[in-house]
């Protein structure tokens, strides 16, 4: 207990001393210029919906066989101010590698890094992993700003609104900032890399189900968890379309747990017929299909993801399906963008990568291409030309 007083005294003394010393308010924290972070409890956004709907039909520009360098409706920005020779140090603030999609991308990114290191474009990449925590990622970004000795920042935000101030602080350093996957509410980054988006996913999948089902049919929507924008937008679009088409859709949160998924489907089948399954992410798709098998009823029309376990089950069962894609190859693009930026090449301000679902017609092609990959691998990972292919992905070697 005596220590309590000591601590108190020390804390008091220390604070007085510190007050006397210079106050070091972080200069980059500034009054927000507009009302950042408007309440976003409603995910449907007609403008964004229309934009992404349009982007689906656009033929992307860029090298034909390198989807990770293609872009859609890009407004190019000049990066000559960053032109600088030599190998650069990149600091990567990653949200997490806590799901198979991120793990696959993370492996790809590291292979891309090796290539660029070999080319002399990048000296090293220092990574801090926030383990799904906003607070940790903010601290990570601040650490990079203060201690990282970084030439460029790559940030894969854990959440949109929360990461905005920290990304702005990184921009303040004058070094190029690249944001990818989830976005932030600022355009200070040199480029924001992402596939078309959640609404496009929702439109692709919902339209597929609507086409293959009749009015009044029932669709069970399996969702991982609430509150993640890229996932919420997928459902927001699909829900609207189902509504319009008169499809009865019920949604559940599953935590991606296949046991949970199986129970939900079993209960739904016990209640009545289920004609379609819609998923906001492919993991657990196999369990959903197996629930139909176990109940001894016909396979549903189904949308999953380009996750291999789903593709294989799809092939095996021959059900009517679609594998929407949230392009995993986007994990290559940020490092390539770094190279381009320091070379002074112009890059898209908003780098919209192509995002096209795998249809039944393409199924065999992707299955063959990804033969030997684990179930949690993503077919459109786009790393076939990287040095570690295929062993690194097959063995899932995580740095």
């Amino acid at each position, binding site marked *: *207990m005596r220590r309590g007083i000591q601590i108190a005294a020390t*804390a008091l003394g220390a604070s007085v001393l510190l007050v006397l010393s210079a106050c070091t308010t972080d200069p980059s924290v500034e009054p927000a210029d507009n009302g950042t972070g408007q309440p976003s*409890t409603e995910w449907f956004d007609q403008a964004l919906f229309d934009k992404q709907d349009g982007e689906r039909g656009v033929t992307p520009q860029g090298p034909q066989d390198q989807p990770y360098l293609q872009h859609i409706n890009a407004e190019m920005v000049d990066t000559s101010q960053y032109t600088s020779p030599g190998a650069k140090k990149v600091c990567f603030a990653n949200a997490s590698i806590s799901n198979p999609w991120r793990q696959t991308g993370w492996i790809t990114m590291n292979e891309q890094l090796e290539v660029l290191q070999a080319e002399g474009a990048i000296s090293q990449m220092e990574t801090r992993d926030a383990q799904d*925590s906003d607070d940790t990622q903010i601290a990570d970004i601040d650490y990079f700003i203060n201690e990282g000795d970084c030439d460029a920042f790559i940030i894969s935000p854990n959440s949109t609104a*929360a990461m905005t101030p920290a990304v702005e602080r990184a921009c303040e350093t004058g070094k190029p900032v690249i944001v990818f996957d989830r976005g932030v509410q600022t355009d200070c980054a040199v480029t924001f890399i992402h596939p078309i988006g959640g609404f496009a996913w929702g439109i692709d999948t919902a339209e597929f189900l609507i086409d293959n089902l009749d009015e009044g049919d029932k669709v069970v929507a399996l969702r991982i968890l609430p*509150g993640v924008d890229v996932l919420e937008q997928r459902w927001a679009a699909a829900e609207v379309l189902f509504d319009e088409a008169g499809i009865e859709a019920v949604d559940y949160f599953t935590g991606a747990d296949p046991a949970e998924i199986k129970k939900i489907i079993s209960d739904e089948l016990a209640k009545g017929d289920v004609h379609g399954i819609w998923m906001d992410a492919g993991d657990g798709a196999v369990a959903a299909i197996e629930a139909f098998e176990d109940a001894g009823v016909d396979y549903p029309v189904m949308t999953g993801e380009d996750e291999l376990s789903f593709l294989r089950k799809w092939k095996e069962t021959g059900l009517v399906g679609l594998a929407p894609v949230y392009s995993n190859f986007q994990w290559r693009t940020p490092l390539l963008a770094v190279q381009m930026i320091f070379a002074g090449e112009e890059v898209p301000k908003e780098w919209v990568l192509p995002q096209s679902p795998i249809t039944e017609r393409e199924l065999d092609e992707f299955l063959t291409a990804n033969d030997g990959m684990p179930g949690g691998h993503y077919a459109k990972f786009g790393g076939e030309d990287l040095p570690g292919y295929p062993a690194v992905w097959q063995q899932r070697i995580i740095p």
Partner: protein
Amino acid sequence: MTALAAPARTRRVLTTTAIVYLALVAVIVLGAILVSVVANRNFFSPGNIRDILTGMSVLGLFAIGQTLVILGASLDLSVPFVASLASLLAAQTMAGGTGNIAAGVGIALVVGAAIGFVNGAIVTGLKVNGFIATLGTGLIVKGYLDTNYKGTAGSVPWEFQLIGATGLGPVPISTLIMLGLAALVALALRYTRTGHHLFAVGGNAEVARLSGVRTAPPVIAAHVLSSVFAALAGLLLASRLGVGSPTVGSQGGYDLLSIAAVVLGGTLLLGGRGGVAGTIGGVAIFAVIDNVMSVLQVNPFLKDVVRGVVIVAAVAIYTGRAIQRRRPRFSAKEELR
């Protein structure tokens, strides 16, 4: 005239808290060496110190409250959800307006206190084990959050964000606030009746009762404070995030981590012994280890392995020692030693 043999009780024994801080020093020294040798960085650079202290502030706030409930022989598993709720309520109330800061903070703290009161009432009134009671209320709050919030909401004004982003030299304001509150709580435990009674109830509720202590109020107070501290942590998180978030509390795994930090700080999980000073030491140990692992870019999965091993190993070292210390009680035994 006293025939009592005066046992040699005057020998100095290291207090538990001293051990915790010795361990902290050891971790810092080891970490500093690792950081400079392996990563070629300066562990004591302002940016790194700031990173460590920032890591301490949030967990520290949670752990201060957790210390109180554990001293009272209870637990609080609801803190992450209370923090999330507080961040949302504050951010929505403030809605970016400077004038609403007080209201936002007030609402968050009042709601936090109310949840804490419910926890305390369930534990003391319905005699439900603290583990179960707070697991239950935590789930209820989580259900509310999941049902009513579909993502981050609200926004806090710039002035409020300064709390999370400003520092005096390398020391973040938030850390100073946390340490200040820790000192306040330490003083409260020592200099208020409720503090004394909390130790008594946690140590032996029946003895406390027979001594005229009403056993419920200290436990309720501890739960209220625990939830208030969780709400404070939520406010700090809102300040750092700029928005409220329904998942920000659970993201950090603060429920189990804060309990681990408290036990690491030498507080008895069964209650009645310990204090805030040790807890801060425990929190600091975690923060330093996390920082070192991040600087060394340890695989995030491996980080969890290290955390798990450290928690168990540290507590094992500490408990092994505590058992040794308690044995000699009778003069006859000691004289023979």
